[in-house]
């Protein structure tokens, strides 16, 4: 990943490159292979994907900004527990808002909204980015990562809803249920496999046929 050194440059990068980095270069799901659980679990329909994606986006931006504002007072030795508490506070807030305003959707994805607190992507962005950079770039980085996550969930959700249910956002676009398989748990794993392979091919094409390291999932160390 050519974008990797960008995190360690002295001057914080611009907003556009940070957004692009989050959506394509370091897409949380397809490239970093972090936070995969919700990516399979809630993507049987696009609406569920959007709901969780927006929740993650909000939590990521809010906790990134909180950490960027308060990092001066966070002792490095207790930073992980403090980050966890910050995330947990924002997750609880978002959880209550969603439960209050979208009860029907929430009934389906409620457990996963609560589990955002354990998503590796959020804490790893806090550790890698928000704890070292000033407020403005942190905001854009959080937004980029959140959008990248939202985009990934929507892509998988669209794929699975159209193929598995014949609908898109609840509207029927294919006469009958074409391939129920993709709506089943097993189909979720296969959809991700196919989409990841597709992104690998795309990446290779864009880098001009050069051999790019595939997303091996070697980034699990970051989960800690």
């Amino acid at each position, binding site marked *: 990943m050519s974008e990797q050194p960008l995190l360690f440059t002295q001057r914080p990068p611009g907003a556009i490159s940070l957004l692009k980095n989050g959506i394509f270069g370091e897409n949380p799901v397809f490239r970093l*292979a*972090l*936070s*995969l*659980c*919700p990516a*399979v*679990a809630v993507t049987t329909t696009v609406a569920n994907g959007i709901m969780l994606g927006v929740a993650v986006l909000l939590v990521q931006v809010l906790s990134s900004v909180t950490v960027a504002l308060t990092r001066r007072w966070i002792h490095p030795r207790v930073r*992980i*527990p403090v980050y*966890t*508490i910050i995330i*947990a*506070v924002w*997750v*609880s807030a978002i*959880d*209550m808002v969603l439960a209050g305003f979208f009860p029907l959707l929430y009934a389906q994805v409620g*457990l996963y909204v*609560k*589990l955002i*607190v*354990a*998503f*590796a992507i959020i*804490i790893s962005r806090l550790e890698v980015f928000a704890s070292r950079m000033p407020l403005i770039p942190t905001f854009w980085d959080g937004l980029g990562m959140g959008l990248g996550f939202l985009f990934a969930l929507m892509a998988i959700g669209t794929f699975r809803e159209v193929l598995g249910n014949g609908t898109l956002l609840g509207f029927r676009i294919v006469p009958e249920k074409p391939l129920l398989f993709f709506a*089943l*748990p*097993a*189909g*979720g*794993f*296969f959809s*991700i*496999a*196919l989409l*990841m*392979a*597709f992104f*690998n*091919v795309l990446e*290779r094409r864009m880098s001009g046929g050069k051999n790019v390291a*595939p*997303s*091996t*999932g070697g980034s*699990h160390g970051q*989960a*800690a």
Partner: protein
Amino acid sequence: MAKPRSLVLAGTAALALCFAIGLALAAAAGRPAAPHAPSSVITRARVLAPDHVRLTVAAPVADLRPSNFRVTDERAPDVPMDIAAVETLPGGAILLTVADRLDPAAGYRISILSPAGTREAKPAPWALLFTVVISSALINNFVFTRYLGLCIFFGVSKKRDTSVGMGFTFAAVMLLSAAISWGLYTFVMRPLELKFLQVIVFIGVVAFIVQALDTILRKTHASLHQRFGVYLVLITTNCIILAVPLLNAQAESGAGESLALALGSGAGFALALFLMSCARERLELARVPAAFQGLPIAFALAGLFALAFMGFSGLTFLR
């Protein structure tokens, strides 16, 4: 080599201890059996998990039509439930098949109209626990049907012995955190109306246990710590550990069910890790298309396992 053996022994002992504590708690929390009228013609009634009730009768019952029997839920005593079939079993017992699913946590009253007799029945506690353990380990396997813990699942399932170690560590931490969270939820958060804090409290409990285990193991069992320390750190940010207390809180489960869920899902996760690591060791030798190398093929493999685990969804037992 003595090291791995003592390791396994220590792990088994820890699990056994957790389980014993769980059983003791469950026994303490179990409700006493309902008293019954001594003149009743039914001498025993057992709810067999999904939709069957078995009656042992003192005298043979001639009228075996469903209308001769009445099953009511203890929470709605005036609404009789539909009875789909009545059969006699060898030995004179009667098996009622109820049209709806029976809730294993509820109590039921079963009556025969002629000869008149009534008996209250509750599912046997061990049957309930067994149901929870099996269903969370196989039917609702956390990895293959609920998609939890995937990061760790794909991260450590490359080698078989790492995955076994990970499975043990996870099961132990899950049991411990489920027990502590259950206690906090039942005795502190519910009486004080602090349920909205559950996310913060439960992640705190998990982080605390992981940190405590890490410190204790480093001081007392350095060799254990050397092998399992890495996994311990990974556990804090893992959804599978946090999901157990959250699910328990959602269902307002009792102590026994909470621990059974933790045990079952821990065992299910360990099983999934072990299966996957065996398959991935084979995958090393396979020629995989370039685009599918690494994670994509692992996902496809998990999809195949998930397909196989769907076979468990029709699993019924305790007939």
